[in-house]
């Protein structure tokens, strides 16, 4: 009786020390995680704070609290860099290239998934193969094609190539293989639907989740593109946000306040967008990377 009580007491004591230990290691973990989080966010924080400070304050002291120079900085930035025109250009390019990539990509994926034409497998391997080629490899040829087609300094040079998005085709095809049964297509054919109608009216609604996920990435890729617009655009009124941001660096040199406003304007909208759809972006990432 007595010894069992002691045992039980010891057991309880062990359990509490174990709990305390776990708590302690949890606290250390939180400190490490928070420290890294602070470090990761710090550059963005400094960027936002500096956007509200005068150039003199930025150059001579370390600022952790917002100042009152935001409007002035913005006006000076605006007088040399038309960032809103850049937003307009970037939006036109990113939205139309994403829409085209999504529709044509889904169409291609459907063609590969549901039609047993000759060369299906070989051509699909060609698609997969292009995933290995970074766009920069044929840069000079790309420039040549654009000038031959009169696409230099034309937004179409940044919109049309987006159609060849092998990633999108690959993942939408996997999704079609799993989510669109042949019977649905067959019965639609018996009802007299044309092949295009089947795709537009029946297949697209069934595969919308995969198209949406891949479209987010197509949009981000197009929005963040720097090298290709740098090569094909030379008219400042057609510059995209990344080019204007990098250009602001050269225009201002020592006017730090103005340049931080330009950088912040190019980054903060992305942060806000990510706040609202991080779930889809992070979910889409892992759908693409991990084979089950």
């Amino acid at each position, binding site marked *: 009786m007595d010894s069992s009580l002691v045992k039980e007491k010891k057991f309880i004591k062990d359990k509490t020390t174990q709990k305390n230990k776990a708590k302690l290691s949890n606290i250390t973990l939180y400190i490490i995680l928070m420290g890294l989080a602070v470090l990761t966010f710090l550059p963005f924080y400094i960027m936002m704070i500096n956007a509200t400070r005068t150039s003199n304050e930025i150059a001579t002291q370390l600022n952790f609290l917002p100042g009152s120079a935001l409007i002035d900085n913005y006006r000076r930035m605006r007088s040399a860099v038309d960032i809103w025109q850049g937003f307009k250009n970037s939006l036109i390019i990113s939205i139309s290239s994403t829409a085209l990539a999504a529709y044509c990509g889904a169409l291609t994926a459907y063609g590969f998934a549901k039609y047993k*034409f000759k060369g299906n497998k070989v051509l699909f391997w060609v698609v997969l193969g292009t995933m290995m080629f970074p766009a920069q490899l044929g840069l*000079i040829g790309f420039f040549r*094609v654009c000038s031959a087609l009169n696409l230099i300094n034309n937004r179409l040079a940044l919109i049309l190539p987006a159609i*060849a998005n092998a990633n999108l085709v690959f993942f939408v095809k996997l999704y079609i293989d799993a989510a669109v049964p042949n019977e649905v297509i067959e019965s639609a*054919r018996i009802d007299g639907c044309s092949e295009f109608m089947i795709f537009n009216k029946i297949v697209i609604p069934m595969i919308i989740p995969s198209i949406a996920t891949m479209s987010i990435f197509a949009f981000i890729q197009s929005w963040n593109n720097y090298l290709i617009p740098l090569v094909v655009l030379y008219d400042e009124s057609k510059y995209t946000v990344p080019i204007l941001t990098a250009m602001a660096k050269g225009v201002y040199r020592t006017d730090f306040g103005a340049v931080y406003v330009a950088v912040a304007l190019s980054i903060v909208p992305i942060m806000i967008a990510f706040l609202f759809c991080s779930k889809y972006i992070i979910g889409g990432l892992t759908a693409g990377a991990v084979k089950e």
Partner: protein
Amino acid sequence: MFSKKIRKDSYGYIFILPFFIILATFIIYPILYSIAISFTKWDGSIIPPEFIGLNNYRRLVGDAFFLRSIRNTWIMWLGCIIPQMIFGLGLAVILSEKKLKGKGFFRWVYYLPNIVTMASVGTLVFFLINWPHGSINRMLMTFGIINEPYNFLQSTLAARATISITLWWMWFGYSMIIFMAGIKAIPEEYFEAARVDGANKWQIFWNITLPCLRPIILYQVVTSVIGGLTMFDVPYIVTEARGGPQTTTLTMVMYLYNTTFANYNFGYGATIGVGLFVLVMIFVAIAFKIINKNAAYD
């Protein structure tokens, strides 16, 4: 009935046609064209290219700038990928523990730099490390780590480290998320069995988590090397196109871009492109061999 089926199947060609027209025009033809141009001398103007045989290639293999740009690119890539893998793995293991609160917040913060425009990141870093007025210099001086402003673009090590750290900062959150998904896919019974056998956390990590994640580590290294060999935006903007100091941060694509579009040497630029292409293909082939070898054991 049979002939009808055939007719339906040929619709497949129509459906994949737009994709292949674009692919041929904007990807395949440009690569072939670049290869053809690499045998010529051409300034990109209306004066037609002049065939000069293998001269560009002879120049390429002895070109100190090109060889240096390969080395620079690899060094900066390694300086990014190694800490990226370590942080990605460590954080994924920590955040995969179910009890931890605030998982979503940490994931959001760590991944954030990855979706931000690289050109903006480059510009931001350029001003943060600015000499002598950048905020990082202010910070180091405020905390008494240095006495006077340090010029990060004056020393090879500091300049390369700046690029590597920036890229690490942009990519460790991505690695973390991929590894978290990989850990989730490991059957719970493996961990259960190990715990029953009395394995501690380290033993579980080394003997179960790590071996199960091997294909994912390889996948990440392969995709990262393709991105890494074509590194451009950040070093181009941070070093203002020069790749300084003394071209020790000049990457291969920067050299290609500068040769072609700053010096108007299209022929030699195309040759650099082919060199880059061959290097990427060699690495992809090696990586595929490793992956296939790996798959054979599974």
